[in-house]
């Protein structure tokens, strides 16, 4: 009588191939902030296959319903699945035809439950999500992680952005940022990420959402300069190691 060893009723992790145990194609950081009239969000357009830069025109910022903007890092196929969930959610909500519509707060709340439910099933959606929006003059900016950790703040970032962009945002963000200053601040963050995050690419989109609606920019690149002497001879300031 061959019996499989008992696993306390918990699903075995390695045996079942129907779950994401590690990501395949991933997007890197998303950075977003509140500004005077709404939310600004930036992300690059790279899609990495491990350390290979596999895709270079991936849109990682999408409008959701009338009042929200969703940015994603992590597994891109899981992001597309999430977009399908949200499309259905918005559609079914719209079919009530009652003049109500889901705002950013509701969409964010929904996403936190989806992410947390999937982690409870040991079958996570491998993403960090950023949700921003404006409804009834209220700005909203929040984030959710793969395992359901969620919060709101005046500025948020995912992945490397947490290490490199948020310290800049904490220094320079203020309540009354103009659109121009907001974009300039995001670009400063994206430039640091571009220099220091190997999977970042120099092709970005910046998205804006206000009471009037969503605008996502055409892809563009930032001016960089690699001529610093520290880049030319990186070991000069740290002799002795190699």
């Amino acid at each position, binding site marked *: 009588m061959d019996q499989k060893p008992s696993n306390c009723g918990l699903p075995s992790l390695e045996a079942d191939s129907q779950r994401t145990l*590690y990501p395949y194609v991933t997007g890197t950081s998303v950075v977003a902030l509140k500004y005077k009239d709404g939310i600004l969000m930036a992300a690059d357009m790279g899609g990495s*296959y491990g350390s290979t830069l596999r895709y270079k025109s991936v849109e990682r910022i999408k409008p959701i319903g009338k009042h929200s903007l969703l940015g994603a890092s992590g597994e891109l196929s899981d992001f597309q699945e999430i977009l399908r969930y949200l499309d259905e959610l918005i559609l079914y909500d719209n079919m009530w035809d009652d003049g109500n519509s889901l705002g950013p707060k509701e969409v964010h709340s929904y996403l*936190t439950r989806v992410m947390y439910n999937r982690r409870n099933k040991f079958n996570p959606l491998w993403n960090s999500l950023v949700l921003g929006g404006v409804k009834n003059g209220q700005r909203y900016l929040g984030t959710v992680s793969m395992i359901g*950790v969620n*919060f709101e703040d005046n500025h948020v970032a995912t992945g490397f952005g947490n290490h490199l962009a948020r310290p800049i945002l904490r220094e320079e963000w203020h309540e009354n940022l103009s659109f121009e200053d907001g974009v300039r601040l995001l670009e400063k963050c994206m430039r640091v990420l571009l220099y220091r995050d190997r999977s970042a690419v120099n092709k970005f989109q910046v998205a804006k959402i206000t009471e009037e609606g969503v605008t996502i920019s055409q892809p563009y690149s930032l001016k960089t300069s690699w001529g610093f002497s520290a880049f030319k001879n990186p070991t000069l300031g740290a002799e002795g190691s190699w």
Partner: protein
Amino acid sequence: MTKQQANWSPYDNNGGSCVAIAGADYCVIAADTRMSTGYNVLTREYSKITKLADKCLMASSGFQADVKALQKLLAARHLIYQHQHNKQMSCPAMAQLLSNTLYYKRFFPYYSFNLLGGLDNEGKGCVYTYDAVGSYERAGYSSQGTASTLLMPYLDKMLKSPSPLLLPAQDAVTPLSESEAIDIIKNAFAAATERDIYTGDKVEIVILNAHGIRREYMELRKD
């Protein structure tokens, strides 16, 4: 492609510390507002204290997503209770509900460390302290979270409460006044912040007495 990440874990520790003190006719419950993961601060303004009923507050640290799920579940259970009994749940009843709720997930626990503070049916301050799987105890004061090991001996020293080892058992509430209790909490957090990297930014102090609920904040170190 070979896997690059370490094995996936459904848990995280988002840090934070909580303290609660019961007095003769009041209860003070406090927690810092930092939320972190590893060496990152995620946000400096996350409230760990929720109101579960009119005379019952919960402060929770641990894994934020589990804490949020627990809070939502208790809120839903309390709403049903109100519909069935047409009254607010008492703090001792909520304490038992919280214990049962935690133990229900004994084999896939909520990674949350809770303190319950409030007033009992006689209007006396009460504090309940828990582990992640539902063991609980009524106490005169307690601490939970990443700096609990730093906070607890300080509270032991300062609160002048009778020892729980005395026979016959003595009332565990502190004889100190409300404002003295608040000062002790402020000092405790200021000290804990110096040594615990997961505690900081701000303390939220909630004071519950016969008049209702009052909130105070004190800034802490941001590093």
